[in-house]
């Protein structure tokens, strides 16, 4: 048994793609506006979305679209699904907003809560009932070989049977999400290798 990539989602330039197909576009909108548009277009129906910071909104959107219509919960136990993500800016976008609020005398707990990059993983897990291993790495750029090899090793050691991996970066209006789902499979249409992920990431 190996890990195979079953689905992937890309959000950048106000466009949303799943498995290489464009599903949605909203040009000339700020991220705030674009994320609201996408929320309504895909009928996310999850009021907590509006309370999230932008990094979490980006992650929630990408993961919802990634997992939509996949019978994830029926095949693999929640403790057997992992989430391994990375980015460059950590939660800096929110940190700056929060620092600004403190300066004007109002420390907002709802904003402070998001001043950590792994909260988006928490949100993805809560939304989908995922309980497996989860880590958030910080690096200058998306280090595909490191992340792919790491996920494969964890799979080989039976840490999980499925994993959401990828890059989730947002700073102001500059953002990029690339998430994929790798699952235990016998037949390998898209084996989870450095080559596969590089190809999928660079294709769009």
């Amino acid at each position: 048994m190996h890990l195979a990539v079953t689905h992937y989602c890309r959000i950048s330039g106000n466009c949303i793609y799943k498995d290489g197909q464009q599903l949605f576009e909203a040009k000339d909108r700020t991220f705030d506006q674009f994320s609201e548009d996408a929320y309504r277009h895909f009928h996310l129906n999850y009021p907590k979305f509006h309370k999230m910071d932008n990094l979490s909104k980006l992650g929630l959107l990408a993961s919802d679209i990634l997992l939509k219509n996949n019978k994830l919960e029926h095949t693999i136990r929640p403790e057997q699904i992992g989430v391994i993500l990375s980015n460059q800016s950590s939660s800096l976008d929110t940190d700056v907003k929060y620092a600004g609020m403190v300066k004007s005398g109002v420390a907002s707990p709802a904003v402070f809560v998001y001043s950590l990059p792994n909260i988006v993983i928490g949100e993805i897990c809560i939304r989908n009932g995922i309980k497996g291993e989860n880590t958030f790495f910080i690096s200058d750029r998306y280090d595909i070989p490191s992340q792919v090899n790491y996920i494969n090793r964890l799979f080989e050691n039976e840490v999980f049977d499925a994993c959401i991996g990828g890059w989730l970066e947002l700073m102001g209006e500059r953002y990029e999400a690339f998430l994929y789902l790798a699952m235990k499979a016998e037949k390998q249409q898209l084996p989870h290798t450095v080559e596969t992920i590089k190809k999928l990431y660079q294709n769009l």
Partner: protein
Amino acid sequence: MTELKENLKRQIVEQLNLKDVKPEEIGDDQPLFVEGLGLDSIDALELIVLLQQHYGIRLAKAEDGPIVFRSVNTMAEYIEANKK
């Protein structure tokens, strides 16, 4: 008191990012937490910030929260009783 309650509803929707809720849809006596608007512990803390920011009232003990924030009515009563 009516104006206060209308303001409160608007402020609650804004402060808690309840984008799918219109202020006028919130009942005066509707429970805000659990089954009502489905608010959680972080929302409770934000309401404490709201009290301070808009009404200059400091709720020092988080345990008083459930009583004060039970509904728009209880919040309005608390504000009337404590505003400076």
